[in-house]
């Protein structure tokens, strides 16, 4: 399908509701009236096979006199992006909820309710999301008249959790400070005997106000904020940021920089997946394998040190290209290191995957059904292990991925074992991609000047982080600043999927299931 075909079809089918439409590159922007949004969204999902990938609001009262809500859908087979916008009258402050038709929208709408104070009409459960009991009512940080550094008084309200009643049903509260060295989050398990009946995750303990913080900041400073959204996804987040800025500036990044970006993105994926695999092994008390994989992970950090001296690949990217030529002169030693990693990983995987005790723990544990995964837009290895063959690198090729050879591994069982298999296969794909990149990298420039950016322009940046699809939206303000920076990391979509995957499993398997997804709290909480 081409973008013009889609535009024609949409305009014909919803001519009463569409106020304006404009195609741009592979993106279609539709201005819609709020009475028709529910119908259009559900038809986009059911008839056109699109998935909701982001939903956010923007305060445009200053220049336009209203709030705007953006609904971003992706048509993944043809690589199209459809963005619907709806205006919200500030005096009423309500917008129609689409969650009953599209379950994935529920969390976004609660987020808008908290941060903008706009009420989603007809939302099935409007509990607070970002704000815990210590926040007062009427704290609306993303409204533009809310000062960044204001510190509202502490309230003391109790957070309610969904409860399950019945004989023998009890609850286990866990967190926010966990037993292991991980990020904070509160989990409320409801159980009858050993199996988990329900899990409710209360997150946002590490909410740092990143979106508000970026408002009005220079493009340069925004970049450093994007690098610090989620530590182990530093590079892919910064890449999504650069991608949006480069789209707005209308510049072409030199080929050598595009190839180098693939190298770093894949190194990040490899490091992250190795950490997850070691974690899964450790959680089934398989010490030998865990330490073996941790050792290999140490080597991948050595690749990072060789390349740039930063273990988390920070300060490597920049809008317009990369900082320095990181690869020149190191080709041979890098390939030797990567081959060593590949050999050792092959040996280790061979041992692990033939261990019956390991297989016994991971098979049929934490099953995420394909139906739920699709409904919640689970992405990354979490989605691909449940039969969703989607990868941003294939659907919306960026950097040099379009000219490189790689496969997207897919599994259909949706259990921990499937996720482990997907991650193992992706590790090998990443190593092969890195070697390809080093061998075929063209010579030449590594950065382009950005130039002045026009104000009030916007663009989406999509990348595939180790955890899945990353969607960044940027609108520029005057004098090279950011007016709005909306980040949606894969963890935001995958957390609800995790809560479904643990149902019916026993509590001791929760850490294992959690590790197999390895979601970022910081990336979710912003």
């Amino acid at each position: 399908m081409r973008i013009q075909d889609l535009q024609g079809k949409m305009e014909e089918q919803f001519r009463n509701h569409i106020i304006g439409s404009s195609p741009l590159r592979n993106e279609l922007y539709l201005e819609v009236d709020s009475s028709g949004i529910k119908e259009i969204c559900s038809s986009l999902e059911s008839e056109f096979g699109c998935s909701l990938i982001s939903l956010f609001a923007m305060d445009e009262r200053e220049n336009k006199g209203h709030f705007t809500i953006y609904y971003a859908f992706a048509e993944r087979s043809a690589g199209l992006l459809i963005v619907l916008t709806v205006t919200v009258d500030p005096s009423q402050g309500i917008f129609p909820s689409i969650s009953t038709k599209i379950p994935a929208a529920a969390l976004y709408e609660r987020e808008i309710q908290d941060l903008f104070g706009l009420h989603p009409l007809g939302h099935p459960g409007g509990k607070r999301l970002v704000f815990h009991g210590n926040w007062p009512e009427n704290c609306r940080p993303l409204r533009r008249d809310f000062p960044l550094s204001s510190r509202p008084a502490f309230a003391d309200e109790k957070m309610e959790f969904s409860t399950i009643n019945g004989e023998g049903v009890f609850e286990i509260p866990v967190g926010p400070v966990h037993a292991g060295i991980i990020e904070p989050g509160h989990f409320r398990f409801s159980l009858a005997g050993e199996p988990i009946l329900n899990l409710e995750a209360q997150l946002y303990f590490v909410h740092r106000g990143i979106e508000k913080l970026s408002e009005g900041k220079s493009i340069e400073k925004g970049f450093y904020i994007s690098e610090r959204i989620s530590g182990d996804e530093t590079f892919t987040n910064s890449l999504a940021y650069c991608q949006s800025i480069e789209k707005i500036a209308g510049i072409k990044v030199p080929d050598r920089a595009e190839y180098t970006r693939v190298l770093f993105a894949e190194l990040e994926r490899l490091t992250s997946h190795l950490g997850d695999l070691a974690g899964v092994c450790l959680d089934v008390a398989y010490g030998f394998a865990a330490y073996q994989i941790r050792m290999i992970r140490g080597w991948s950090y050595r690749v990072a040190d060789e390349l740039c001296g930063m273990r988390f690949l920070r300060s490597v990217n920049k809008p317009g290209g990369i900082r320095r030529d990181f690869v020149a002169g190191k080709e041979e030693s890098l390939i030797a290191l990567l081959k060593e990693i590949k050999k050792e990983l092959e040996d280790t995987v061979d041992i692990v995957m033939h261990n019956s005790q390991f297989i016994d723990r991971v098979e049929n544990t934490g099953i995420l059904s394909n139906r739920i995964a699709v409904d919640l837009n689970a992405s990354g290895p979490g989605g691909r292990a449940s039969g969703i063959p989607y990868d941003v690198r294939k659907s919306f090729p960026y950097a040099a991925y379009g000219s490189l050879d790689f496969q997207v591994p897919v599994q259909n069982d949706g259990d921990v074992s499937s996720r482990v298999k997907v991650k193992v296969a992706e590790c090998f794909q990443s190593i092969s991609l890195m070697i390809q990149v080093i061998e075929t990298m063209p010579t030449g420039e590594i950065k382009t000047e950005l130039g002045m950016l026009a104000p009030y322009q916007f663009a989406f940046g999509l990348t595939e982080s180790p955890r899945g699809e990353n969607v960044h939206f940027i609108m520029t303000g005057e004098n090279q600043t950011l007016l709005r920076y909306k980040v949606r990391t894969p963890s935001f979509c995958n957390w609800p999927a995790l809560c479904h995957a643990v149902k019916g499993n026993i509590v001791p398997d929760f850490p294992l299931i959690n590790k197999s997804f390895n979601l970022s709290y910081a990336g979710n909480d912003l």
Partner: protein
Amino acid sequence: MFKVLKKIFQYPRVTQGYPKNPIDSSLFIGKPVIVETNCTKCGVCIDRCPSAAISYDSDSGIPVINLNDCIFCTLCEEVCPTGAATMTTEFELAYEELGKRVEKKIKKIFGRSLHIREVDAGSCNGCDYEINALNNPFNDIERFGIHFVASPRHADMLLVTGTGTRNMELALLKTYEATPDPKLVVAVGACACSGGIFRDTYATRDGIGSLVPVDVWIPGCPPRPQAILHGILKAIEKK
């Protein structure tokens, strides 16, 4: 089984000798410095620094870098017209809170073994991954008798990362209260030291120092595992 044994013999020991033997830090990006003789006081680094870590020294008028605020982004080195700002490879940056020397005796008690509870009070998870890396076979922190424990009730030291977000404030204070005296607190990373790039938002504090008394500060964004190890050993004065 044979394959497992083979691996055990193939890699009998990968643990690095740090800090007994120095580590090759030639590839590391460490502390930034401004070389006084080359500096023209043009102020570019001050304007561009994303975490506002650089300011003019009130006496000499030369820009100075506050390591607590620094996020080690290397931008000052890139924008400095005269090359006065440069990144060094120095990574052992932990320093103690002044006036805390009286607690030497406590440190002696902990000297034999130390139990640590890690608390993420609002980091990007970079520091947490680096703390995790202390348990990997390269660093193997347990060789010093240092263990990470599951509960603050078993801990002698809190290793805190993150800016101290509003939603984590209560949890951090409760964790501190639950840790038996005598106890030490170590702030890890730019966020915990000063708020880093997340300073001064509606949801954060300027580091954890305003919430709990801190004994040792470890700058970095994130500090390397060896830099964290150096900070922990410094806190208990174990060489």
